[in-house]
């Protein structure tokens, strides 16, 4: 079938040639959700109109997310013989300028450019792929994201796509599994279970039907890696699943995608159709007689459905309740009681490369225990938020300060949260740690699905813990007592602490309860729910104590523990705050320093934002005395 595939590949390249007309300029606009959210579509529209109106020869295409979300909207231009130049923060207006000056004339507008890729770019803009953002990255899973047009299968094939499948179809199933085992590939869903072993345990059982399920129910609040892959490189996942189908002997696969990912779903649909058209999916794939079909199932919004048995329950039409242990493995009795292979988007998407480039190539990346790369959604109080892919084993420091460009507004770093609601927070003195499955767990956090949220001094750790508990509380399925009641109980206590009702012994009680919830819960959600609390207590216990003992929120975040106060010395009675206050709590006229009526104040913080930097007369106070003073009506 290799021959058969070569034909397809050749044809693909030719079509591409025709489509691309590489003799004219190519324009790429980052049109993943993040891009669109920032206005990519209107940019595309303006340019298209302009090109047509002024009949300028150029190709424009919508691509996925290259990961530099901080720089959205991203517009790249490749002129024949020129390197790819990236423009950032593009608006319809600047887009027109760029067309006028760079496409029509030859001014590459260094003022608007972010930089260029590859060799020999103009001297007055910096090179991106060797710059801070990319030099520490290694793009394997994301290699096509933002580079190719995800809605054009030819581009995927041109970039080496479906070779892995073609090769796999010539291999024995056991051999594919042994390659995976050699490569040491571990599931990218969070727990990091060895993929090879999982596939093997699904190959063994005899059954009239087996299923392959791609878990794209990315529910972690603050993570969007899976979505970016589906939006930017859908074929890589389809190819991976098809290989899985062939390996375990399944003819049916499901994409379990959050309904909140409309664009991803749209692109998947298109990709599936294209793959079928090319006989890379569907019946008698590449003439091997192997049939594999893919169906998209839209998750209806339940974080717990990321858990394999819950996910299966919900496809079967039930409440997404995990099956309590002891129960047969999903790989033996999964969907409709049939052997079912369930992997994460990133796991499937990397499989083709592992097969085409070989186990050793994969092992050469990352660490021994955790080979390969890790994809993170790097967000929070950081200068360069975005989607990054780094080799396992890289130091957290590097990610935050080099790739991420350090903390926003030069504030002080406090902690980095990984693993979302199941993970934990690591403090400054843990930044030397290497990022891999096992190290993070040892330190009290985890890789999780790949959210990495940077937290600075102006963030309250108790509040962060409460935030995650609130999330797991809302998302707990309600089946088992420890999780259903436990998350609620922990949340209540954290609310109390944040609102000044904390009690002596609460911290110990939280620790004890956390332990019981971990031991007692049915599924991963409950078994990890206490982590954010336990890790923040481990590293930031003093903040908890400040809240409980002194009713003080050191980060000045917890509403009930702060008061807004106007410093008479600094106040110039400009009246900005007075006008902005939505509840008319601020009084004072011209030349008279303003004051805040604490009884009226709702602590919305608008006055604080309104007061110009140069005065910064509005201040936030915390602690028993200040609160008491404010309460006693005396203006803080």
């Amino acid at each position, binding site marked *: 079938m290799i021959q058969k595939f070569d034909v397809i590949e050749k044809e693909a390249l030719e079509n591409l040639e025709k489509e691309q007309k590489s003799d004219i300029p190519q324009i790429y606009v980052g049109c993943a*959700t*993040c891009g*669109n*959210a*920032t206005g990519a579509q209107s940019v595309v529209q303006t340019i298209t109109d302009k090109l047509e109106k002024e009949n300028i020869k150029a190709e424009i295409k919508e691509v996925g997310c290259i990961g530099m*979300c*901080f720089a*959205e909207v991203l517009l790249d231009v490749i002129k024949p013989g020129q390197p790819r130049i990236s423009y950032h923060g593009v608006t319809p207006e600047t887009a027109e300028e760029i067309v006028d000056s760079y496409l029509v004339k030859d001014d590459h507008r260094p003022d608007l450019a972010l930089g260029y890729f590859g060799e020999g770019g103009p001297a007055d803009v910096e090179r991106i792929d060797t710059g801070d953002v990319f030099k520490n990255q290694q793009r394997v899973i994301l290699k096509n994201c933002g580079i190719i047009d995800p809605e054009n299968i030819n581009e995927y094939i041109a970039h080496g796509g479906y070779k892995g499948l073609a090769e796999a179809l010539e291999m024995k199933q056991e051999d594919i599994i042994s390659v995976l085992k050699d490569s040491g590939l571990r599931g990218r869903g969070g727990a990091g279970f060895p993929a090879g072993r999982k596939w093997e345990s699904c190959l063994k059982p005899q059954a009239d039907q087996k299923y392959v399920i791609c878990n794209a129910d990315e*529910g*972690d*609040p*603050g*993570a*969007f890696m899976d*979505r*970016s892959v589906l939006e930017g490189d859908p074929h890589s996942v389809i190819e991976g699943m098809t290989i899985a189908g062939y390996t375990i002997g399944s003819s049916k696969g499901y994409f379990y995608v959050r*309904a*909140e990912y409309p664009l991803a779903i749209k692109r998947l649909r298109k990709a599936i159709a294209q793959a079928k058209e090319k006989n890379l999916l569907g019946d008698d794939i590449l003439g091997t007689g192997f049939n594999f079909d893919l169906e998209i*199932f*839209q998750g*209806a*919004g*339940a*974080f717990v459905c990321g858990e394999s048995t819950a996910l299966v329950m*919900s*496809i*079967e*039409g*039930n*409440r*997404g309740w995990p099956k309590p242990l002891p129960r047969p493995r999903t790989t033996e009795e999964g969907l409709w009681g049939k052997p079912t292979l369930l992997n994460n988007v990133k796991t499937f998407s990397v499989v083709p490369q592992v097969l085409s480039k070989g186990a050793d190539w994969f092992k050469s990346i990352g660490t021994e225990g955790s080979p390969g790369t890790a994809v993170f*959604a790097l*967000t*929070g*109080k950081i200068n360069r*938020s*975005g989607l990054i892919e780094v080799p396992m084993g890289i130091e957290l420091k590097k990610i935050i300060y080099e790739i991420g460009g350090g903390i926003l507004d030069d504030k002080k770093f406090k902690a980095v*949260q990984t693993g*979302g609601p199941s993970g934990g927070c690591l403090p400054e003195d843990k930044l030397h740690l290497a990022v891999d499955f096992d190290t993070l767990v040892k330190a009290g956090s985890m890789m999780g699905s790949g*959210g990495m*949220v940077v*937290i600075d001094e102006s*963030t309250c750790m108790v509040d*962060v813990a409460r*935030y*995650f508990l609130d*999330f797991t509380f809302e998302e707990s*399925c309600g089946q088992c007592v420890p999780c259903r009641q436990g998350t609620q109980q922990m949340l209540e206590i954290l609310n109390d602490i944040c609102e000044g009702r904390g009690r002596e012994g609460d911290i110990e009680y939280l620790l004890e309860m956390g332990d019981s919830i971990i031991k007692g819960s049915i599924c991963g959600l409950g078994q990890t729910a206490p982590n954010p609390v336990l890790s923040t207590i481990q590293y930031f216990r003093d903040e908890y104590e400040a809240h409980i003992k002194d009713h003080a929120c050191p980060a000045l975040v917890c509403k009930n523990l702060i008061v807004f106060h106007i410093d008479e010395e600094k106040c110039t009675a400009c009246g900005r705050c007075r006008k*902005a206050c*939505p509840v008319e709590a601020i009084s004072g006229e011209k030349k008279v320093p303003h004051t805040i009526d604490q009884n009226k104040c*709702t602590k*919305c*913080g*608008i006055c604080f*934002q*309104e007061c110009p930097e140069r005065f910064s007369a509005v201040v936030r106070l915390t602690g028993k005395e200040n609160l008491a003073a404010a309460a006693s009506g005396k203006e803080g």
Partner: protein
Amino acid sequence: MQEQTKKVLSGFEGKPNEVIPMLQAVQNEIGYLPEEAIRDIADHIGIPESKVYGTATFYSQFYFSRRGDRSVKVCLGTACHVRGGMQVMDALEREMGIKAGENTPDYKFSLERVNCVGSCALAPVVMVDDDVFGRLVPKQAKEVLEKSDPKV
């Protein structure tokens, strides 16, 4: 309404694994899930209506009463949270005079919290249907609503 449901359901075989797709299809058609619709789905598949209701109420995607014409979704994903998404939510609740999960009396808007719309770089983010408003501060709440008024 029953006709609407019937029409939608006619596109399904009536297998148990179609429960959620059916619920989604009906909600797309009607805007929420009226009781009769749930009963019809149960009958169409031949499973207890209580079970279908149990499944529907489990998932946050489904609504059981009429919604506002435009839905204001305040992202409270981690990034938005640490960047003050909650204050924005407070401001919107104040402006609209309703709490999250409610509709304005004139059914122009419904307000809800969502977990990560995936625009973390723009945090804090608010989505009104598909329009995204990024890097918001509380006082912009009014402006967001004015821009999104269905009549405009």
